[in-house]
């Protein structure tokens, strides 16, 4: 009931353009059309956005300091995320192709190895095999490690023959089962899944992911506080203007708007600066990483932030700027009332 009355009140309080026109004779047509209202709203938003932009430029030092803090606070989780993504990518490169390496006993001859390899091919759970005889193994080792001369000091080849087994079922549960069965074969000294280090890496990535989330949460809080504090100071410095605006009939939304745009601009500029920081630090890391990768004979390539991630970073930072401003505005504008 009371709600209803209030709503009625709301209708009546809207200045009636027709009545105004009668009383004041002048052209009072500014409120006649809804489209006019919408246009006026848009125009005001554009104007406020522009004013907010230039007022931030007018205080370059304050703005720069705030932006620097924002950029760093956004860049750190961004960089951690990028690092994490690269680690995951490193793991993914191997994960698609897990193999069980069977290191045969030294007593097994190359013929035994060949026989075993053919026998294994007949099994249901094996998709394929590849034999690396002791001889081949030695040649490969010489070629890849640069320690080729070592063998000339030895009487015999110390390397065992190896049968690489490609499992038919690549699931994380099936591969270890196959590994255990193959381990039990009499000719096999050791069955190793070269997936193990990938699994360890995945474990590490999981841990790192958690850490990135925790740090991201902390830095997001920092961003909110920094924007909030900057906006709070800005509200304080415009106290008189706010009071007068409220006295002549400014809505809360009208008073809030310039500060929200401040927050948005901080978000835009902070996000862009963070992006530059991330890409710059990746550029610095690129050559040592390339060097390392060459040592590992890997195809790995350091990936920066993609297009989608860049957009995400920007959207996130804009939302954070807006949210920080909203927090400050919500708290402090209520306190400022005309007396």
């Amino acid at each position: 009931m009371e709600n209803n009355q209030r709503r009625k009140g709301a209708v009546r309080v809207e200045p009636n353009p027709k009545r105004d026109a009668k009383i004041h004779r002048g052209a009072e047509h500014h409120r006649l059309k809804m489209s006019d209202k919408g246009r006026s709203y848009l125009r005001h938003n554009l104007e406020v956005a522009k004013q907010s932009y230039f007022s931030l430029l007018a205080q370059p030092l304050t703005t720069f300091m705030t932006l620097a803090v924002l950029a760093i606070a956004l860049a750190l989780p961004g960089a951690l995320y990028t690092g994490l993504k690269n680690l995951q990518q490193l793991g993914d490169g191997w994960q698609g192709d897990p193999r069980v390496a069977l290191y045969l006993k030294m007593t097994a001859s190359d013929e035994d190895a060949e026989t075993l390899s053919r026998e294994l091919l007949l099994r249901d759970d094996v998709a394929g095999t590849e034999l690396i005889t002791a001889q081949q193994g030695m040649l490969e080792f010489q070629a890849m490690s640069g320690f080729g001369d070592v063998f000339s000091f030895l009487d015999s080849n110390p390397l065992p023959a190896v049968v690489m087994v490609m499992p038919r079922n690549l699931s994380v549960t099936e591969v270890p089962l196959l590994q255990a069965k193959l381990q039990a074969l009499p000719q096999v000294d050791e069955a190793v899944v070269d997936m193990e280090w990938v699994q360890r890496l995945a474990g590490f990535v999981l841990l790192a992911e958690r850490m990135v989330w925790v740090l991201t949460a902390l830095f997001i809080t920092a961003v909110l506080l920094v924007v909030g504090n900057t906006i709070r100071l800005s509200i304080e410095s415009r106290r008189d203007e706010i009071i007068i605006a409220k006295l002549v009939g400014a809505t809360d939304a009208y008073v809030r708007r310039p500060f929200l745009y401040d927050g948005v601009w901080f978000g835009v500029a902070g996000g862009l600066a963070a992006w530059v920081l991330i890409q710059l630090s990746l550029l610095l890391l690129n050559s040592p990483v390339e060097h390392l990768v060459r040592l590992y004979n890997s195809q790995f390539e350091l990936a920066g932030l993609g297009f989608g991630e860049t957009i995400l970073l920007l959207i996130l930072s804009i939302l954070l700027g807006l949210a920080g401003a909203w927090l400050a505005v919500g708290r402090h504008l209520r306190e400022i009332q005309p007396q």
Partner: protein
Amino acid sequence: MISFDNVTKRYPNGYDALSQVNFSLASGEMAFLTGHSGAGKSTLLKLLMLMERPSNGRVLMGNQDLATLSNRQIPYHRRRVGVVFQNHQLLFDRSVFENIVLPLRICGFDPADATRRARAALDKVGLLDKEKLNPVVLSGGEQQRVGIARAIVHKPQVLLADEPTGNLDPKLSEEVMRLFQQFNQVGTTVLIASHDLGLIARMPHRVITLNRGRLVADGK
């Protein structure tokens, strides 16, 4: 246009700024509100601006009970009212013109229209040649005229003034009062709080006298 119906305003500390005040002002009427400082003049104006709410009784403006307005609706109510303050409440970080156009911006007027209206208001108070100046360089009387121009620029139905001549010499005070009369002549309801009894006596308007929150006299 304005009506006080048995209005009491008690502040939380138990002090009654207004008690059981009854009066009404017809549309297009002009009246003075007088009394010693602390008599309740400012409180009465604050109730009309919805800067305060009455503890008891009803305040009506244009047949609308202000108690039915929620806090969200206060801004729209204030757009119907123009207020002139003793200390002008001008913004010194912008020009005279920008000060005056502010209410129009807030109401969402078209910029060209707003400029035209702001100039017209400045012309009415005789400050058209000073629109680009910062109000800080104007004299007290001129600053008050800027305040008046800002109060009437959006053509409010009601014009309130709180000690508008408080800091002005007699000659300027009379000029300011004459301005209020002019706005009243075109149909605006005007209520002026003032303790300048000499000046009030020389004007042919209704005088409402408050004493310690009570209405003690009401007449010409």
